[in-house]
């Protein structure tokens, strides 16, 4: 009952929260729609280090604004995606990349799921094969089982 009463206010509250997180707006002008698309892609790929579960495009933190400005400056100057990502990772560490790169310390992260999948398929096949191999009940066993079941009834 209490839950029901709380539900509507909570819903309203949550919708406000999600609205406020969309509030970061800068007026950056691009001479080229491709650069604009790259900028929009990059600010979604970079994590804000102050507000860790937001990308820099979504955050109002001062640092996120500065990093957006930096990203804008680099993109307008014609730098490509890798240049900007390298620039950020050199300063703030791999942590700022929402999509970890394939390198020695992230190898397990990338191939781990495939290893788990292979192991799971292997175990599943083994399990299926074992249940197929099961020896069928002999006639005497079946009778014994039926007798036991009848006794229960």
């Amino acid at each position, binding site marked *: 009952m209490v839950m029901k009463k709380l539900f509507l206010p909570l819903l309203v509250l949550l919708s406000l929260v999600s609205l406020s997180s969309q509030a970061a707006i800068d007026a950056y002008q691009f001479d080229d729609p491709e650069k604009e698309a790259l900028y929009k892609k990059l600010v979604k790929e970079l994590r804000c*280090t102050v507000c860790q579960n937001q990308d820099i495009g979504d955050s109002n933190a001062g640092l996120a604004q*500065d990093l957006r400005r930096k990203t804008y400056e680099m993109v307008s100057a014609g730098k490509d995606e890798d240049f900007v990502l390298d620039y950020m990772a050199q300063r703030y560490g791999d942590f700022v990349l929402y999509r970890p790169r394939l390198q020695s310390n992230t190898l397990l992260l990338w191939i781990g799921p495939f290893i788990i999948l292979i192991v799971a398929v292997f175990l599943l096949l083994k399990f299926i094969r074992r249940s197929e191999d099961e020896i069928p009940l002999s006639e005497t066993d079946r009778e014994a089982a039926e007798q036991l079941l009848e006794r229960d009834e």
Partner: protein
Amino acid sequence: MKRYLIPLAVFIVLVILLAAGLKNDPKYIPSPFIGKPAPEFDLPLLHQPQQQLKKADLMGQVWLLNVWASWCVSCRAEHEVVKRFVAMNIAPVYGLNYKDNPDDAKGWLNALGNPYKSSLMDIKGDVGIDWGVYGVPETFVIDKKGIVRYKQVGPLTNAIVDEKILPLLQTLNAEAD
């Protein structure tokens, strides 16, 4: 028996890993600068804006860079720690006055005391970005060859100075130029 033990063992391992994960501080981000050359800078001084200081001017000595701002509340608490450290006269501390108003910054130092050899003005915060600053105050220890050897994110405390920075400075000061 074995078939019950395996899920139990998996469960226990999982609990241990998750419990260890809880102890990690999610705010802590390992700095990519440790062991690497300190980023370049060339900035005007807070008290003599016509004068610039750059990284090359500080080579050959062990020094600390303390990132601060007058708007930063925890810098106020840290300031006493910085003053105590500077009074020991072991290594100079340079300030990086990060995204601040110069007048506010000077007023702040007048009111609280100025332990810095000098403070560099980084009004736009560009040098802060080059140094990977994300949580003011931050403190870097730079060795004689200009390599970053330690980074503290968040305020210094007397305990951190005594247990981490002083022993580190002892080894760094003993290193050859």
